[in-house]
């Protein structure tokens, strides 16, 4: 692996019955990313549990606390690399709390693999997974039609499932879907093509993961720079240095660009872009940098620098889709905290318009808001926020909701518009 390989984050959606663990296990195994000591630990456990062969799903489950209490922890992260790319898998186990788990894992993913069993086709859960993938805006969707060996590798069956799925995806406005027939058990179309699916001419799953274009997964158009930390060394060498440090969440910036500071609206120009490794003429997302401006203006953490000819919305009110994560239901009489980019403000939920049934996509008016619910809400915040719609910009359109009493993260929010 060279130093110029890219990083791709993906998640898998599907139940154990769809062969999810086998698929992950085989990807890791074929990419030589299962180590001998891990393999020997799970083979001992497999034998102890009376299994005839090694259960690859044991690789991903299994904290003592989970086994003891019969619970599953929402996301486990696994890592593997091929000569072309480095991969992070966000593995979400089980059916319980599926919405909450999948939204959490999906929030950082470039790609989701949605698994269906070729015998059963597109099910309610397939629709649910696809809806959640669209809600969280995962840039790339792969429909993996697994267990093709159990339908005699039938091209007609694959085409039937593919057509039904693409029609559903189009309803949600999803056009970035690739469908792959495969057999995780036999290894067909994962890393090796095999011979049984000779009629399929698209990429194997691994080819797709290694080659899919991800440069445009972040918004490259709109410069958004939330200020994280201000560096004022006040040493002789850096007497006048006042660097606004942060990470470019989207777009790019160059020396000389006219800048507006939000929410104050004050303007200036970029004097210097610097990193530890030297000065830059231009920097782009997701680089972490320091920016100096030509004018001494009042800027603090939580402010956002943008280009003066490309402004986001600035408001104290907005609408958003919320995924409620907490076991304690939303209390409309209480104030919560919203953390949006680097700014944390108090908020009130002014309206809960409807809840989406993630299985049928039906809307239910005036709902209570419980764990795993997806709702459309009106929100008022105590100080103005600078934001974009989530659809346009994942970084400046997302926020979390914190309960001040417990300090727990109780909801994930995606700004509408």
């Amino acid at each position, binding site marked *: 692996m060279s130093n110029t390989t890219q990083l791709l984050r993906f998640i898998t959606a599907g139940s154990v019955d769809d062969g999810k663990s086998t698929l992950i296990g085989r990807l890791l195994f074929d990419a030589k990313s299962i180590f001998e000591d891990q393999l020997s630990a799970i083979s001992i456990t497999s034998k102890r549990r009376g299994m005839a062969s090694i259960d690859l799903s044991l690789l991903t489950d299994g*904290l003592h606390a989970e086994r003891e209490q019969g619970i599953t922890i929402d996301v486990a992260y696994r890592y593997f690399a091929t000569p072309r790319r480095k991969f992070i898998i966000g593995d979400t186990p089980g059916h319980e709390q599926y919405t909450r788990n999948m939204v959490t894992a999906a929030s950082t993913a470039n790609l989701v693999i949605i698994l269906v069993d070729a015998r059963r086709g597109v099910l309610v859960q397939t629709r649910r997974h696809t809806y959640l993938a669209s809600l969280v805006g995962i840039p790339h969707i792969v429909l993996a039609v697994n267990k093709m060996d159990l339908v005699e590798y039938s091209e007609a069956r694959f085409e039937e499932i593919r057509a039904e799925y693409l029609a559903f995806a189009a309803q949600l406005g999803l056009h970035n879907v690739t469908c792959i027939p495969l057999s995780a058990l036999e290894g067909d179309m994962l890393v090796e093509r095999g011979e049984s699916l000779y009629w399929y001419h698209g990429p194997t799953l691994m080819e797709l993961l290694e080659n899919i274009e991800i440069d445009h997964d972040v918004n490259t158009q709109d410069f958004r720079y939330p200020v*994280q930390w201000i560096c004022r060394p006040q040493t002789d060498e850096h007497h006048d240095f006042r660097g606004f*440090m942060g990470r470019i969440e989207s777009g790019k910036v160059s020396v000389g660009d006219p800048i507006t500071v939000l929410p104050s609206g004050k303007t200036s120009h970029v004097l210097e872009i610097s990193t530890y490794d030297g000065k830059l003429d231009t920097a782009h997302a997701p680089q972490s940098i320091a920016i100096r401006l030509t004018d001494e203006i009042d800027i603090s953490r939580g402010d956002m620098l943008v280009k003066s000819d490309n402004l986001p919305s600035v408001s104290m009110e907005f609408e958003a889709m919320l995924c409620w994560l907490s076991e304690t239901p939303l209390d409309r009489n209480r104030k919560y905290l919203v953390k949006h980019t680097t700014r944390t403000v108090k908020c009130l939920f002014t309206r809960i318009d409807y809840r989406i049934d993630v299985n049928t996509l039906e809307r239910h008016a005036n709902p209570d808001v419980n764990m795993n619910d997806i709702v459309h809400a009106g929100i008022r915040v105590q100080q103005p926020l600078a934001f974009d719609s989530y659809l346009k910009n994942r*970084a400046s359109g*997302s926020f979390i909701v914190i309960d001040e009493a417990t*300090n727990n993260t109780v909801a994930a929010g995606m700004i509408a518009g």
Partner: protein
Amino acid sequence: MNSFSHLDTLESESIHIMREVASACRNPALLFSGGKDSIVMLRLAEKAFRPCKFPFPLVHIDTEHNFPEVIETRDRLAASLGERLIVRSLEDSIRRGSIVIRNPDLPRNPFQSVTLLETIAEFGFDACMGGARRDEEKARAKERIFSFRDEFGQWDPKNQRPELWDIYNTRVHQGENIRVFPISNWTELDIWQYIEREKLHIPSIYYAHRREVIRRGNSVMPVSDLVRPKAGEKIEVLSVRFRTVGDMTCTAPVESEAISIKEIIEETAASRITERGATRMDDQTSEASMELRKKEGYF
């Protein structure tokens, strides 16, 4: 865009995390041992905060079972960066009576959490950054980047805050504490590639050298004042290097001829055994031992 590699992505993510800690936490610290992961953490802190000083001290919880080369690196790096280094020793806790050990030569990792919690209380730290990685161990694979701890420093795996996008919930109540792992998403191979790219100086024992060892089970143990041959064991001299550098009584080297970072990277990429599986005797004792130690307040 194509020039933005996986190392650039990981580096920027880690810098972002460190700056969040510096801004949002009242009194943070960075745990620094002189090992390779914490050396990478220091470089990331330089990238995050220079030309300013680090907005936190470096803290080392010393078991007094460390390899001298590692302690030498620790002190030299802290001095050359001009940053404040706080060292607290398990011996202090033993003298105070908060740690009772039956045999001073046995592994001390299980007791590190006691001294760490005492140090957190002494300085009132509300956030401690550490160099743990999720690829090391399966309890870590399920831990958050911002990992919330109660008053006893305990990790409750079933009661973790959901972590979405890269919007981190940094809030703690008085007396509580978060552990933050800026290099969660790095693998052992990433660390070596970064050390090569950044030309970082690491303790000499990471490179192959000839050393007196004893074979125990599947491992070779380094001979030292703390590890002497038992009856029937014989001392051999082998070419070895360390993949991790912890407590001398339970850190095993691997046989290797790799004398450059490039050769170490080649061996790491081809390795069929995990870092901890190869080198940490204490983690092999039980499948759940890391999880149990974390619940007691260990990293």
